[in-house]
């Protein structure tokens, strides 16, 4: 009996590595610390009422962003561990197995649990405000999306101390990820966690599509929408059409692994290649899901700080629409080398090059917006300006990779690693940082410290180039990706050393940024006007932080850059003029959180194939859905006119 328990615990908890024990201890300490803090300061009720049950898009956005920053930290630590291992030849800091696990969790976390939630967080904050709405179309569903993402992220992260991490890469290719070559629970974590967060993502796509179609302020036609809202609309459409493919692929592989089917194993006629095919049918649109929204952010930031209307509004919109259609026709460029026919490779080569055209159009539009603008170099603007050249390098190397014959040289080398970090970091990460600085006042009512922000920018941006530019060259010298060590004598030492130094420099940049956030919370300049940047779009028309109901009166829109126009005409105060009316708002609900906890329980059960746990979890899920489905009529309340007036007065809007 004792022996049994011992051997169970030995395989349940990851053992044997001092770093893991350190992590165990710090996780335990942090959890105890949080519980103690909440109990001692009697914050449990506050946590439940204000955050766990909220359906307010602004609070959900803030939670998304906090979670994304935590995940950026986790993924960043993974990256530093990898680079520490590769600082010198024949290093023994990490074993090959450990290295495999780390690049897998790094890639998966950065894409699914950092980039996407960060972007969804900013969408949640900004889009309803930009279109003059009181919330998203389905506030309850929005909370469900967030909690599914959050608990899926937790499920994925505990793999590291319980049961073992996935180790077949973020692409989880069959047959390597199949049961035969990869027994154990690691890949199950990958499959189930991504499945759960994918449901949330799909719901977010639907939610924002409907929000943007149905909830725009009167007068705001589609072609008067702010560019970030446009980018969110296009992204939502891509999400809706791309994510089902991932859902199916994950489900099929889960069935393979858990119930012994053979969709992706050669036995019984399955096809491992089909996994790569399905994965990238989703995967290429996915890179646009994390890119297009930040293109919207850059458009907002550049036009605000160049103090000009965006150049070529229509061209911007149509290029995004073109990207969304074309993004579904290029997926094969991720596996040119899998032995497809020449016709197939040529077709996908060309379609990939074509998609560079609308992207190039956008770059020129930003340059023309800057031309003759009165440019103000705020931190947000610095991130946006740095994006243009750095991203273009990634774009050009992308076109190089799209040439199928040449790709046989570049494929799966560090050249590829450099390319996709060049687009993911200079695109997505710079973009969300720009958005964070830009919308921070709207979220919290104060401005992030500019001096620290600029320090973080320069340290991060320069280190980023020190880290990733040499990767192109070391890739051409023959170093492949996912290599856990390298021999001496190949001439790779200097570049690997430089790359690692750059990576740690980015870590320093991140720390400065965290310090900036803490510092600004205490000493940051308060934003009393609601319009710290002399903004052009409606989110700046309301106070900072935005009140629960967003706008006391729904604004009337006449042109693009609606708020800039209102300020010119002198009608900016029309949204907070007395008399006020009662405002209809959605009720908070605990169901999204509880539902997601059941998803977590069911998911954990499936990972370990403990059906005594998975089945009750699944029943819990269904019960929550039934409870919600038959209780539709009491889900809203009214904020009385007097309370609106008080809130506006407290924000200093009524004299």
């Amino acid at each position, binding site marked *: 009996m004792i022996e049994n328990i011992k051997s169970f615990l030995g395989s349940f908890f990851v053992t044997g590595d001092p770093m893991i024990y350190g992590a165990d201890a710090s996780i335990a300490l942090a959890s105890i610390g949080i519980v103690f803090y909440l109990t001692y300061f009697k914050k449990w009720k506050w946590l439940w009422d204000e955050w766990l049950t909220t359906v307010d898009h602004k609070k959900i956005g803030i939670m998304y962003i906090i979670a994304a920053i935590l995940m950026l930290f986790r993924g960043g630590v993974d990256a530093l561990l990898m680079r520490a291992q590769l600082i010198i030849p024949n290093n023994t800091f990490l074993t090959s197995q450990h290295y495999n696990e780390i690049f897998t969790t790094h890639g998966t976390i950065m894409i699914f649990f950092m980039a996407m939630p960060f972007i969804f967080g900013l969408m949640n904050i900004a889009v309803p405000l930009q279109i003059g709405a009181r919330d998203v179309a389905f506030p309850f569903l929005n909370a469900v999306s967030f909690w599914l993402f959050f608990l899926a992220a937790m499920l994925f992260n505990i793999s590291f101390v319980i049961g073992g991490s996935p180790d077949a890469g973020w692409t989880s290719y069959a047959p390597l990820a199949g049961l035969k070559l990869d027994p154990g629970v690691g890949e199950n974590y990958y499959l189930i966690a991504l499945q759960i967060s994918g449901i949330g993502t799909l719901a977010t796509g639907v939610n924002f599509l409907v929000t943007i179609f149905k909830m725009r302020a009167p007068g705001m036609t589609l072609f008067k929408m702010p560019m970030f809202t446009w980018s969110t609309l296009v992204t939502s459409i891509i999400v809706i059409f791309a994510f089902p493919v991932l859902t199916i692929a994950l489900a099929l592989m889960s069935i393979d692994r858990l119930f012994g089917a053979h969709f992706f194993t050669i036995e019984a006629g399955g096809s491992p290649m089909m996994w790569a095919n399905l994965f990238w049918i989703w995967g290429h649109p996915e890179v646009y899901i994390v890119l297009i929204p930040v293109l919207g952010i850059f458009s907002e930031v550049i036009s605000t700080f160049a103090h000009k209307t965006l150049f070529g509004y229509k061209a911007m919109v149509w290029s995004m629409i073109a990207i969304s259609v074309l993004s579904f*026709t290029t997926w094969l460029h991720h596996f040119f080398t899998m032995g497809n026919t020449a016709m197939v490779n040529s077709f996908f080569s060309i379609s990939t090059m074509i998609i560079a055209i609308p992207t190039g159009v956008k770059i020129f539009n930003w340059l023309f917006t800057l031309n003759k603008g009165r440019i103000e170099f705020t931190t947000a603007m610095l991130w946006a300006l740095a994006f243009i050249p750095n991203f273009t390098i990634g774009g050009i190397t992308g076109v190089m990779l799209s040439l199928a014959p040449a790709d046989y040289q570049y494929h799966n080398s560090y050249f590829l690693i450099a390319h996709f970090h060049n687009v993911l970091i200079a695109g997505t990460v710079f973009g969300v940082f720009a958005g964070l600085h830009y919308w921070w006042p709207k979220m919290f009512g104060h401005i992030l410290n500019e001096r620290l922000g600029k320090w973080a920018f320069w340290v991060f941006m320069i280190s980023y180039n020190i880290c990733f530019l040499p990767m192109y060259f070391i890739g051409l010298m023959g170093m492949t990706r996912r290599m856990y060590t390298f021999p001496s004598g190949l001439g790779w030492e200097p570049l690997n050393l430089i790359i690692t130094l750059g990576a740690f420099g980015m870590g320093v940049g991140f720390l400065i940024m965290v310090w900036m956030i803490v510092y600004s919370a205490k000493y940051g300049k308060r934003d009393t006007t609601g319009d710290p940047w002399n903004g052009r779009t409606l989110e700046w028309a309301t106070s900072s932080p935005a009140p629960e109901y967003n706008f006391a009166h729904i604004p009337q829109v006449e042109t693009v850059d609606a708020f800039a126009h209102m300020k010119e005409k002198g009608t900016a105060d029309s949204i907070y003029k007395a008399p006020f009316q009662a405002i209809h708002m959605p009720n908070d609900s605990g169901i999204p959180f509880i539902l997601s906890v059941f998803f977590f329980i069911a998911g954990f059960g499936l990972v370990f194939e403990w059906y005594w746990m998975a089945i009750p979890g699944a029943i819990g899920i269904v019960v929550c859905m039934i409870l919600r489905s038959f209780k539709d009529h009491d889900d809203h309340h009214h904020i009385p006119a007097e309370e609106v007036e008080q809130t506006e007065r407290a924000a200093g809007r009524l004299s």
Partner: protein
Amino acid sequence: MSANNHELNKFPWKHVIGLALSLILTLLALWVVVSLSLPTVATLTIIVLLAICQAFIQLLMFMHINENHGRGYRILAIAFGFYIAAVVVYGSLWIMWFTV
């Protein structure tokens, strides 16, 4: 708003029936594949037919395909859906043809 509220307070028969039918069709497909050992072509034909029924049920019961307002959007959405489906199916077949 009030007309809508009225509709909301009624028991949502349409959705419940739609859900039940979707579940039945899905289980039926599973049963055909797992429990019957029909020839491959027959199995495929049956599950494709079931999938088509499933698609119609989803469109009718949940996606309000037969409502009148917003027709333009709906046609656009369905056309885009067909485009994606065609790209995925024909694309995969074309790619896989020489490699399976």
